């Protein structure tokens, strides 16, 4: 602590160079914000973090103001509180009053703020403008009427994901966050990662919902509805309902899905195993031939879309292995040995994932065969949880059931694909095992310094193979660019996940910004690894064959 300042007549310790907001929050002063995001440059757009500083004519925003020697701050003077309340009232003055019918009802920062500021009546009546919701994209839907222009999504899209599919358009109170020339997200550069949804404080950004479609399929007695449950979803649902991470956890969720009307529930972790196995083989092949390096993972559809749109020159380096979701969809529907084509039309594959880019991936033309798509609908974790709740299923008082065969098992490696670094680790383990030819105890050493970019080296078949992993498009783009630009030959496999932190931070995950509820999805994944029976992917995939 460098020096002290006075806040509300109390003295607090602050560090030179930090913002007033961080100093206040650390010392237990609650300052409301709408536009502030940790680790992002402050914009000062919402003005809700204003405080009164002695000697300053106007109120100042604590999010952008550095602490100064001898500062005397008031965070709860009548002037400050009145200003904050008026600001919230201004936002509410032309807000569509449909909280009861809103997707984010109960989980909306504007709602919380209005409650916190004790807004009990509509003081100002603003003219409600006519906005056109954008449902043109295949995974992200926008409703500008609920947008409060905090610019969190804009900064996320620009600074973290490097895509800039949305930005401010127009001036005055006609300003909206929109895609270029109001053309809609489908023609924009949007990569469907859905990170904008996770930072939106209101319901201005949501996923394109497939719930109704799925419900219709369940009700259709002629169709067989198959749910594919991915490991990261199991972790998120467990976190949401407070379930214990024990061996029967996936089966418990499978049981819940069956009660919702699923005819079959398969484990998407199985496809992850196949994916890991295939990618390991591909990597060993490339290492042997010493060409086509580095191999870029292609299991993240948002990353694949990014490469297609922004970096087409990297396409040859992308791994040709299909993403687990599409792989399993194809296996279920188009396995000629077990199933005739006429039967494929009657199957309805619903994938439950933590990703909204999977919604986009499932609709692409490459992922269909003669008019039949491999995956018919994709539910995000949010939708899945809603479905479980709507069906009145008390998941905490249920018995675990087994997943359906043949795709009902997965190895511990599959659980690793849920978080950043896990997939690289899994591929390293599997490749190591393949190169040795036997099941040997193997430890992958995690580097201690956990920055956005991580690297690790491993000896196999007489070659030193470099693995690295990176999450967030901006970091990934810069990293891959530097590897190629510097002509580095020591990195052979790069795992890229578009969402910061990997699938556990995916765009389809439950949105929860309560500070007292930290995220522990990754921890659940890691605990579940211990319960898995098989430790290698080839064991699972091989058995199936």
């Amino acid at each position, binding site marked *: 602590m460098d020096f002290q300042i006075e806040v509300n007549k109390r003295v607090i310790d602050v560090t030179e160079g930090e913002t007033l907001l961080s100093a206040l929050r650390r010392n237990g002063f609650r300052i409301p914000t709408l536009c502030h995001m940790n680790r992002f440059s402050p914009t000062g757009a919402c003005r809700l973090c204003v405080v009164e500083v002695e000697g300053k004519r106007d109120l100042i925003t604590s999010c952008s103001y550095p602490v100064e020697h001898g500062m005397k701050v008031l965070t709860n003077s009548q002037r400050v509180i009145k*200003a904050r309340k008026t600001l919230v009232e201004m936002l509410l003055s032309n807000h569509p009053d449909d909280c009861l019918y809103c997707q984010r009802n109960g989980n909306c920062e504007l709602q919380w703020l209005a409650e916190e500021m004790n807004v009990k009546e509509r003081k100002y009546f603003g003219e409600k403008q006519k906005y056109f919701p954008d449902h043109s994209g295949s995974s992200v839907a926008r409703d500008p009427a609920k947008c409060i222009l905090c610019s969190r999504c804009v900064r996320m899209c620009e600074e973290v994901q490097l895509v800039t599919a949305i930005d401010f358009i127009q001036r005055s109170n006609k300003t909206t966050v929109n895609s270029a020339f109001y053309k809609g997200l489908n023609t924009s550069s949007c990569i469907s990662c859905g990170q904008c949804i996770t930072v939106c404080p209101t319901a201005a950004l949501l996923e394109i919902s497939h719930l109704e479609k799925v419900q219709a399929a369940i009700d259709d007695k002629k169709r067989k509805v198959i749910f594919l449950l991915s490991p990261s979803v199991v972790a998120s649902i467990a976190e949401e309902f407070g379930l214990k991470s024990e061996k029967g956890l996936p089966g418990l969720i499978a049981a819940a899905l069956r009660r919702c009307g699923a005819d079959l529930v398969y484990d998407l972790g199985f496809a992850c195993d196949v994916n890991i196995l295939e990618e390991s083989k591909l990597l060993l092949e490339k290492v042997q031939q010493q060409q086509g390096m580095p191999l870029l993972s292609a299991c993240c559809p948002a990353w694949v879309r990014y490469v297609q749109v922004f970096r087409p020159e990297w396409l040859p380096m992308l791994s040709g292995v299909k993403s687990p979701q599409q792989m399993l969809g194809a296996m279920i529907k188009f396995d000629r040995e077990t199933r005739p084509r006429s039967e494929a039309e009657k199957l309805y594959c619903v994938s439950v994932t933590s990703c909204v880019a999977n919604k986009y991936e499932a609709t692409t033309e490459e992922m269909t065969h003669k008019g039949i798509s491999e995956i018919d609908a994709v539910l995000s974790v949010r939708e899945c949880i809603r479905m479980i709740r709507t069906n009145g299923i008390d998941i905490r008082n249920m018995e675990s059931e087994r997943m359906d065969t043949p795709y009902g098992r997965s190895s511990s490696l599959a659980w690793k694909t849920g978080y950043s670094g896990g997939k690289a680790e899994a591929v390293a383990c599997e490749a190591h095992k393949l190169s040795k030819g036997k099941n040997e105890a193997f430890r992958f050493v995690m580097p201690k310094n956990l920055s956005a970019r991580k690297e690790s080296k491993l000896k196999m078949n007489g070659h030193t193979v470099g693995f690295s992993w990176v999450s967030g498009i901006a970091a990934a783009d810069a990293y891959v660019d530097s590897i190629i630009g510097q002509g580095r030959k020591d990195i052979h496999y790069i795992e890229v996940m578009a969402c910061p932190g990997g699938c556990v931070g995916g765009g389809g995950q439950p949105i929860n910004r309560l500070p007292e509820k930290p995220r522990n999805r990754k921890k659940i994944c890691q605990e579940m690894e211990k319960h898995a029976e098989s430790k290698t992917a080839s064991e699972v995939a091989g058995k199936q064959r």
Partner: protein
Amino acid sequence: MMVEATDGIKQFLIDQVLLNPDREASVPVKKRLSYISRERVEKPCIYVGMATCGLIAGAKATHDAIANYLSEHQIDADLIQGGCLGFCHAEPVVDIQLPGRARLSFSRVGSGKVQSLLDDVLNSHIPDIELLGQYGSKILQMWDKVPGIDTHPFFSRQKRMLMEHCGIVNPVSIEEYIARGGYWAFADTISGLTPAQVCRLVEDSGLAGRGGGGFPAGKKWAITLNAVSEQKFFVCNAVESDPGSYMNRAIIESNPHRLIEAVLIAAYATGASKAYIFIRKEFTLAVERLRKALLSAADYGLTGHHIFNSGVNIDVIVREGARAFVCGEETALNNSIEGKRAMPASKPPFPAEKGLWNKPTIVNNVETLFNIPAIVRHGPEWFQETGTPGSKGTKLFTLSGKTRYYGTVEVPMGMTFREIVDKIGGGLKSELPLKAIVLGINSGSYITPSTLDTQVDFDALKQIGSSLGSGAFVVLDTSVCMVDMAKFFTAFFQKESCGKCIPCREGTARMLEIMEQSTRRPSEKLAFTPLERFKGVMQLRGLAAVIKDTSLCSLGKSAPNAILNTLKHFKDEFDSHIFDRKCVANVCRDLRIFTIDADQCTGCTACFKRCPVDAIIGSPRAPHFIVEEKCIGCGNCYEVCKFNAVIIT
């Protein structure tokens, strides 16, 4: 000394004038300069004032008519497209200078008057009509019985320090500018002064920034000069978008070289190697002339790399910005130069530490910069002679509104507002009394009849709770409704809000809506009930306080000023709108109620035919009647009635 190769002139101007410290002592140099500057001419020389104001008044047609006349009569004369004298009232202005005689100036010369004017003047006969006066000169023969132009009431009280060449020189001719003393200051600066000395000199002069804040310019420069960075930027803010002001545009159009010289000196003094002139794209003529001037300055070696072998590198770049009021805010301006959306950023960090591309950047306004060459050339003491103890120099205003004369005026600091209106503006056009002077929308402050004797001075204005503003000077008489004015200002701020922060974006919209709904016709659905109107006025004050307190940039902070000042100075008028539903000036359309005086009405049916909503009933040759519930208050009937039968109640 007839036609001479331009190369010869260029070499002479560079070697004998710019790089020669004893230039003023040499008689032959002086004599040659008087020809280059067209102070003396060898053949008739005709100037047409062709700045934007002149062009609107028809200067182009006048120019073409003169060109036709000259070629028809085979007269060998120079025809020059000049700048703006500032006297917009008199446009198009034509100046004629005959060899050996003083220069004459004529006002309102439409293309139809060209023939007779030239017939007369070229034969040394002066027509009485439209004569503005003659320019004083020591070396030329004056005309008899012709008043000097500086005795004209519009000019006599002005002090032209910034506008000394405006309307007199050919704006794009670098030769004329150098011959009249231009770029001398810059040439002396880079050869004889260190950047710190220049900063000191400007600080000593007491020049305060004219953008509105009034921060000492020299001090601001010194901060940037002392900042450590491998790259610094200088930015000239030429985004003049305050409604009612256009003096920056006028002086750039009339003398672009002076701005370039000032930018060069300022960039040198602040250690910036790149200078941007950020100008509104709509100022097409100013941009065109600025670019031309910049090309010729580069041709003379005044910009670019290693200027005059001094080792100084300064690049000047003209950047056009879209029409947005917010671009005048320095952080938004920097964003716009970088190619981003013009949105202000929170301060700190200030541009002086982190501006363009995160490098120290200094932003100065055009008017501030126009002072620089003269201060450097004549010294700080010369500058301090003009003005009041607190505010030095002169101030430009765009005088407009209800005065007899209007245009760009330059007054010494310390002149009272009454003097500007009564003497320079020639009083009010109409016989109505003065109601207020609007000093720029940014400050939103009014000078009322009671404060008319206030001096043009930063401190004096602060005392009456006002500020100097951007330079708009709109004179209003009692035919103007102040509530309507406040609505206009609020609508302007709402329209120009960048949309970033909540108070400015939403708050101004709410204020505007309250104002509009409170002044609607009582019969309309959207109109407020008396209780709602009362509540609305209460809310206005609360909203205004929060907007002022919490807005991100100065645009938002000044947005509620218009309404607050109207409430302060014109409370009665405000109340009569809200509570009595009456507009004293009969401007607010929704509050006008028309009736027909049955005694006066002849039943001509003129109003009946014009009414857009069929609110007038009656048969021909019998008195008509207005149905109040239907009437929308458009006033068509009032305008069309020849018998004064329609009355506003």
